[in-house]
């Protein structure tokens, strides 16, 4: 086994022979004769020069005639692994490997919000400034009136990225028109949806973008104070924000008289304790005030009467991250991206049964198929796509028949789902949709603040009905009750949490009703997930009686003599599936 091969290429046979001999002599001298093999190959050059190619690296040296040159190559490249730059063939400084393209994963995306994430050092304000950072703030403060800023955002068509999709410019306009001398800017960084993590990534990768945008928003509506409400579960995001705010203050980009425009703006961080309901705007503002995080009826909307009773603009992290570039590049540029009613891009957090788990940013209107198969790398293990859950516990599922629908706010609502904050959980044929709905319900039952009876009690009952179905004890009447209760909860809850909590149930009922019916009528879980509806059995003809399953079974439910077919005691079996997973002969099946 040779570590390296040296290929000698030339036209003059006598010269080649001399080089090979010299090389072999040098290899012995450096004790490399057992590691490196010298071979003669066909001619690469038109002239009478000699080339050496060293594999596996593929390094090509040119015009190597002369003992000194060979000595250098052997002693430095072959012995020490250092390339002899002065002898490299022309164009070899850039080897093929280094010309390799950027990953398709990045190329197929369109990055506005994640422009700097993964490129700059988030703890260095200088790097942000070098990427046109704070230029937008400078432009707004020195060249635009607050009204012009609001107009620009309105014209861009930017809609709130937190889920609802309310036009950002309109929100700013309401607050701008109020003549209350005290106003506030708040940033919602209380990202609570299971499976969503784009706000965290923006804060960790590009915190200055959010700070700059909040200052611009402050200028636009006439606010001098801002709060970033971020969950305490994101310690790194918090620490990077703290560093970024301190740097911005040091540079005079926050504080008094920014850019000599007479505009003052200051920012503070507020930590949330991780209650899901605090992602709802009125509950979030109440929490910033220092009270228990409970929602309030709307109207009055926060833009009219918000934090401490003053007009407040509350936007999501991703919404803010769009602002500096809209100001810098203009509304027309932003307008050119996306669909008719949904402009710009959307960041999705891909999770679940997908090859590549992570963040993608695509223009609005990109199809789910493109996101999953072109960017996300498809479903692992060649499984079939079943559905994608958007918007976490407030959203719904998108079944396979809508893979080609352009994803924007209105289209997703049209098919009974919603954009939500951007969590995209991909499910394949092994996921039970009833079980999935139950999972999200369990989450909302846990997170309901308890204020409204419909949400506090209704969701609990809904969860119990779902459990009945997955246990195989439900009747068809229960299915009707389930649906009725869903609408009741939606109609009688105050805030977004309760109003949207039944969405996962309703959308799975809409597209996967047959799975519900299979659970109720046939007492079967088609995906083989719900434990009460499945049994594990040994196929006697396949079983060799090796005893592996018997040893592994944590409850001793498997019986049988060695070399004879084993049996599973159904009363003892806890359906962990370990035996099926470990059986080498595929003799255990799930029914």
């Amino acid at each position: 086994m040779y570590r390296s091969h040296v290929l000698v290429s030339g036209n003059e046979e006598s010269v080649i022979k001399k080089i090979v001999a010299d090389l072999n002599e040098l290899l012995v001298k450096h004790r490399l004769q057992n590691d490196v093999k010298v071979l003669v190959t066909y001619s690469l050059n038109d002239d009478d020069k000699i080339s050496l190619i060293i594999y596996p690296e593929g390094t090509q040296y040119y015009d190597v005639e002369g003992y000194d040159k060979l000595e250098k190559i052997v002693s430095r490249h072959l012995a020490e692994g250092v390339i002899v730059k002065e002898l490299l063939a022309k164009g070899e400084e850039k080897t093929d490997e280094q010309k390799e393209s950027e990953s398709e994963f990045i190329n197929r995306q369109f990055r506005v919000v994640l422009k700097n994430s993964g490129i700059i050092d988030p703890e260095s304000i200088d790097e942000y400034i070098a990427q046109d950072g704070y230029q937008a703030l400078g432009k707004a403060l020195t060249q635009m009136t607050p009204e012009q800023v609001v107009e620009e955002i309105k014209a861009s068509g930017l809609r709130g990225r937190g889920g609802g999709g309310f036009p950002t410019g309109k929100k700013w306009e309401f607050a701008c028109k109020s003549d209350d001398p005290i106003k506030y800017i708040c940033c919602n960084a209380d990202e609570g949806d299971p499976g969503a993590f784009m706000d965290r990534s923006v804060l960790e990768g590009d915190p200055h973008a959010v700070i700059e945008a909040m200052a611009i928003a402050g200028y636009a509506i006439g606010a001098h104070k801002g709060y970033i409400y971020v969950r305490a579960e994101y310690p790194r995001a918090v620490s990077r924000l703290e560093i970024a705010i301190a740097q911005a203050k040091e540079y005079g980009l926050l504080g008094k008289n920014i850019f000599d425009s007479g505009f003052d703006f200051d920012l503070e961080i507020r930590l949330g304790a991780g209650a899901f309901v605090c992602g709802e705007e009125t509950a979030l503002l109440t929490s910033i005030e220092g009270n228990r995080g409970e929602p309030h009826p709307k109207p009055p909307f926060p833009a009219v009467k918000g934090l401490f009773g003053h007009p407040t603009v509350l936007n999501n992290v991703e919404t803010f991250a769009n602002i500096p570039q809209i100001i810098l590049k203009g509304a027309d540029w932003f307008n050119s991206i996306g669909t008719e009613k949904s402009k710009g891009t959307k960041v999705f957090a891909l999770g679940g049964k997908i090859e590549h788990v992570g963040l993608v940013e695509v223009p609005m209107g990109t199809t789910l198929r493109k996101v999953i198969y072109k960017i996300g790398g498809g479903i692992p293990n060649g499984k079939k796509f079943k559905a994608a859950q958007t918007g976490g516990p407030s959203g719904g599922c998108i079944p396979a028949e809508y893979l080609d629908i352009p994803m924007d706010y209105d289209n997703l609502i049209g098919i009974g789902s919603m954009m939500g904050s951007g969590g995209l959980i991909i499910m394949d044929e092994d996921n039970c949709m009833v079980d999935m709905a139950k999972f999200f319900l369990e989450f909302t039952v846990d997170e309901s603040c308890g204020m409204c009876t419909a949400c506090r009690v209704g969701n609990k009952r809904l969860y119990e009905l779902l459990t009945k179905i997955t246990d195989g004890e439900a009747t068809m009447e229960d299915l009707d009750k389930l649906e009725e209760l869903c609408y009741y909860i939606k109609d009688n809850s105050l805030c977004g949490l309760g109003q949207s909590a039944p969405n996962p149930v309703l959308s799975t009922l809409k597209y996967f009703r047959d799975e519900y019916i299979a659970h109720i009528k046939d007492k079967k879980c088609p995906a083989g997930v719900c434990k009460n509806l499945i049994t594990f059995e040994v196929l006697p003809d396949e079983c060799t009686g090796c005893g592996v399953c018997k040893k592994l079974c944590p409850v001793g439910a498997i019986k049988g003599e060695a070399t004879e077919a084993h049996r599973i005691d159904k009363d003892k079996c806890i359906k962990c599936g370990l035996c099926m997973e470990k059986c080498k002969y595929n003799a255990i099946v799930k029914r």
Partner: protein
Amino acid sequence: MKSLAELNAIKEKILKEKAEKIDKGEEIKVLVGMATCGIMAGAMPVMTALMQEVEKRHLKNVVVSQTGCIGLCNYEPIVEVLVPNMPKVTYIDVTPEKAVKIINDHVVNGQVVKEFTIDNMRWNKE
């Protein structure tokens, strides 16, 4: 900050310094993804290994720097090597051992460690 000109002066200064270094072929940048996803996957020891290796070899022209999430969360820890006037190379699933090899082969010798790169991923080849 008193004016846009002042901000631009800072920007120009940083960009000029960068350009000078690139002109001289001096600065090689090694970026480590240090968002929560990267750190959970073990980016801290990778970063330490990179910095130790750079120090050990007295590589004055190499800057090891942290950065945010580039989006490939399940291929973290991710290390990107930027050599002036060359395309960026992205390494995935980096361990401290791989980090040392990347410094040795790529940063010192200019040979990309192909088997660790993102383009070596299955779904990228299809």
